[in-house]
């Protein structure tokens, strides 16, 4: 899966799951603030990532992830490890 496909897939499921407009999901936007994530929402983020990409992320994986761009890189890395 190339980066462009990853970005489109992520935009689709995050906008649907967290009910935010796709246009707000920009590479340099902050993921937590844009999606308005609280501690419970991170559990659901893990669920939708697993449903769409087939791997499970952990709390440690999210250390250092601030922007959507950084999140796309994390997905790329995890997919490459599969």
């Amino acid at each position: 899966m190339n980066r462009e496909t990853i970005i489109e897939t992520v935009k689709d499921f995050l906008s649907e799951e967290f009910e935010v407009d796709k246009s707000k999901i920009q590479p340099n936007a902050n993921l937590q603030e844009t999606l308005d994530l609280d501690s419970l929402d991170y559990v659901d983020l893990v669920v939708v990532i697993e449903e769409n990409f087939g791997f499970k992320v952990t709390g440690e994986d999210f250390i250092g992830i601030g922007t959507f761009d950084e999140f796309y890189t994390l997905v790329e890395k995890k997919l490459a490890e599969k």
Partner: protein
Amino acid sequence: MEHRVVITGMGIYSCLGENLNDVRDSLYKGKSGIILDETRKDFGFRSSLTGMVKDPDLAPFLNRRQRLGMHQPAMFAYMATKEAVENAGLDIDFLEKTETGLIYGNDSTAGSISETVDRIREKKDTTLVGSGAIFQNMNCTVNMNISTIFKLKGINFTLSAACASGSHSIGMGYLLIKQGLQERVICGGAQEINPTAMGSFDGLSVFSIKESTPTKASKPFDRDRDGLIPSGGAATVILESYESAIKRGAPILGELIGYGFSSNGDHLSNPNIDGQNRSLNMALKQANINVNQIDYINAHATSTPAGDSVEAEAIHRVFGGKTAVSSTKSMTGHECWMAGASEIVYSMLMMQNNFIAPNINFENPDEITAKINIIAETKQQDINCFLSNSFGFGGTNSSLIIKKIKK
């Protein structure tokens, strides 16, 4: 100082309709909400008869986080409570700034639990059930969700008392307001409506098997009754002190004047005339009225051979044979945890609109049910005061008496 307790709002989401007006019309017409749910046969049910309500679309009203912790009991309760809050002239802004309690009847969350366990077994990973499952699975799901959505600041707990849950919830709200501990309490009952919730109940062979005639299958008090039909939804009433209702200029729909309760203390499922009589007499004594002042009894009668006979005998011993009696379960089926609350709403609608809803499908009494005055056809009649019975597994009994407030 004791306070008078009045009803200032009601809401209903049932197989007779998804709002008060539709339910009023169904009650008046004697319309049944019973269907045959073919999927139940595949699941192993002996009887596929059930009342049916659809899962409401809550997206127009609630955000994602608010919806995530809700399965059927909370979803149904939200719809009923939304209607009740609105017609009581309340809103979230007012509720947030005052002290309003919530005591809701619920006694199962089987649908969400089975979905959760299936998912954990499939994924072999508890995180992958998502954040909403725990809030759907706990028996207090209605209270957790409704109290946070409506920003309630008063008493907050779920009441589980089998098929008397809804009735006892109203009784407990009544006592708290009467004693001056709360000004306002939202009470009600919710009942999930899915095969997983009712499989073990069907397993007792107590459901009607008149599957070829769903709308005629629930026959409370009739000699040919062969069992109950499960159903579900939710019903909410807003209880308030008389002083608070007057101060707010709220609509006063009726006054709750008696709450009787008892426990049989003998058998898990068999009813008991003495236990029911103690509940009835306690409610009458507390209301300080005599039996002739009750214009209508909304019976618990579920259409089971044993249960209806025992209740008919209990009613006859206390009231004799003249008081008008009907079981709205003839139309709704048995709404179980919700029934004690929904039957207050049904009876209130009758009181407001001057009719007694029929005990449909009542064609022939048996030797015992012939002793009481069962209303088989819709009857125009003023109701100034009614009593509603609710009895549950484990021998828990509840009787509520409500009267009209003259304008």
